[in-house]
C-alpha cells in the first residue's frame, strides 16, 4: 500500500487553505483530493460578489476568491492535486480509498483533513405535501445549472426559504429574464445576510412572504402551482389565509447540512476541528455551516497547522 503524509479530502476553500497552511507549517508530502475537474469547490458557481471582504479587504466574486488559492496551491510542488478523485472509503487506521478515472487507489496516510463541505436540504426534509413533478430544484443546483452549465431551469419561480443562496438565486433568475413570483419564509425574518435582502430582493421588488409556508405543490409532469398560507407561532396554518401562486419552478433554500458520510464510516466522533481518531481533522462546511468563506479560510488555516503539528510529533521524518 502506498504511504503518504497528509491527505486532504476536498479542494474547495477549506481544503486549499488547509493544504497551504500544512505546507507552511512544515509538511512536505500533501495529497489534495478533489472529485470535480477543478479546484475551488462551490466558489466556482458563486459568480456574485461579496467574498473576501474580511480576509482580503476586497470585494471579490467566488471564482476570484478561489483563484487566489488555486494559484498558490499550484505553485507549491509539495502539494499534489488529484482531480476527478472521489473518496469511497475511510478507515480508522487512516487508510483512504479513492476512485479516479481508470483506477481505484488505496493510500495509508499519516494524517487526514476532511474538507468535504455540505449538502443542501431537499424538499423531502421539509415535508411539503403534493405531487412530485419535475421543476423542483435546490437553490444551489439551480445556481450550478445557470452559472456553470448555461441552462435556465424555469421561467416562473417560487423560492422556498430565504437563505442566502435562495436570495442570490432570486436575483440571478430575475437577471436572466425569469419572474420570481415569491419568496416564502416560514420564520419572522430572513436567515440570509442583510446585504442580500437589499441587493437581491429589494433592488428587484421581489415579493417576500414572512410567516408563510408552502402547503402543497401541484402539477403532474411539471410544477403548475403551489398553495401558500400564513402560519402562527407554531408554524400551523392560519385558517382562511390560503392562496395559490402559479409557477413552473420551485427553488428550495431551506438550509445546509455538513457532509460527513466518510467520517461516519470510521466511527469517529467530531470534536471541534479534531475527531476522536488521532490524526483525522476537519475544516470548512463539513464541520459547521459558515455564512462567509472568509471564516472558512481562517479556520482552515488553523486546522492545517494542527495537522502539521500532529505529523511533527508523530512522524518527524516527514518534515522539511
Amino acid at each position, binding site marked *: 500500500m502506498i504511504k503518504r503524509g497528509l491527505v486532504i479530502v476536498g479542494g474547495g476553500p477549506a481544503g486549499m487553505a488547509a493544504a497551504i497552511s500544512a505546507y507552511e507549517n512544515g509538511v512536505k508530502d500533501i495529497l489534495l483530493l478533489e472529485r470535480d475537474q477543478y479546484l475551488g469547490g462551490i466558489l*466556482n458557481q458563486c*459568480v*456574485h*460578489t461579496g467574498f473576501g471582504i474580511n480576509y482580503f479587504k476586497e*470585494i471579490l*466574486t*467566488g*471564482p*476570484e476568491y478561489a*483563484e487566489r488559492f488555486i494559484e498558490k496551491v499550484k505553485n507549491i510542488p509539495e502539494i499534489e492535486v488529484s482531480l476527478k478523485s472521489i473518496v469511497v472509503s475511510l478507515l480508522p487506521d487512516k487508510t483512504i480509498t479513492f476512485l479516479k478515472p481508470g483506477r481505484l487507489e488505496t493510500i495509508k496516510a499519516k494524517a487526514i483533513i476532511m474538507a468535504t463541505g455540505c449538502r443542501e436540504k431537499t424538499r423531502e426534509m421539509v415535508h411539503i405535501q403534493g405531487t412530485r413533478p419535475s421543476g423542483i430544484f435546490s437553490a444551489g443546483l439551480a445556481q450550478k445549472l*445557470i*452559472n*456553470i*452549465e*448555461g441552462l435556465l431551469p424555469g421561467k416562473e419561480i417560487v423560492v422556498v426559504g430565504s437563505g442566502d443562496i435562495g436570495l442570490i438565486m432570486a436575483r440571478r433568475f430575475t*437577471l*436572466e*429574464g425569469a419572474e420570481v413570483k415569491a419568496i416564502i419564509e416560514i420564520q419572522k425574518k430572513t436567515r440570509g445576510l442583510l446585504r442580500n435582502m437589499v*441587493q437581491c430582493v429589494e*433592488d428587484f421588488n421581489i415579493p417576500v412572504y414572512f410567516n408563510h409556508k408552502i402547503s402543497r405543490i401541484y402539477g403532474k409532469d411539471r410544477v403548475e402551482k403551489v398553495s401558500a398560507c400564513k402560519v402562527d407561532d407554531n408554524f400551523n396554518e392560519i385558517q382562511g389565509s390560503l392562496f395559490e401562486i402559479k409557477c413552473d419552478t420551485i427553488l428550495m433554500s431551506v438550509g445546509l447540512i455538513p457532509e460527513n458520510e466518510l467520517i461516519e464510516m470510521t466511527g469517529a466522533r467530531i470534536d471541534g476541528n479534531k475527531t476522536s481518531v488521532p490524526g483525522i481533522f476537519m475544516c470548512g462546511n463539513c464541520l459547521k455551516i459558515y455564512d462567509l468563506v472568509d471564516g472558512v479560510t481562517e479556520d482552515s488555516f488553523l486546522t492545517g497547522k494542527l495537522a502539521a503539528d500532529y505529523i511533527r510529533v508523530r512522524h518527524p521524518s516527514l518534515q522539511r
Partner: protein
Amino acid sequence: MVDVRDGKVLKVTGNECPKAELYAISEIEDPARILTSSVLGQGLILKMIPVRTDKPISKARIFDAMKEVKKIRVTVPLKFGDIIVKNFLSLGVNLIATRKAE
C-alpha cells in the same frame, strides 16, 4: 441619518466613516451595483465564463447590461481579470472575466 429632499441628499449624519456618506448619497440618488453574470464560451473547456463589471454601474442600467451580456460569445482563451468588453455600454466600466478560461 440621511436628509433627503426631492430625491437629493441634503445631509448625511451619524456615519462612522467617510465611505458611508458617499454610499448613502449613491444609494439615494443613483444606486449602483457591480453586475455579475456568466457568458457563453465557444471552443473552450469552460462552457460558461463568469464575468463582472470592474466598477459598479447604475442600477437603472442593469437590465440593458444583461441584454448585452447574453449576446457575448467568448472564443479565445482568457486569463482571470482579462477585459471582455471595454467601456461596456459606454458606462465607463469594463466587463472582465472572473475565471481563467482555456
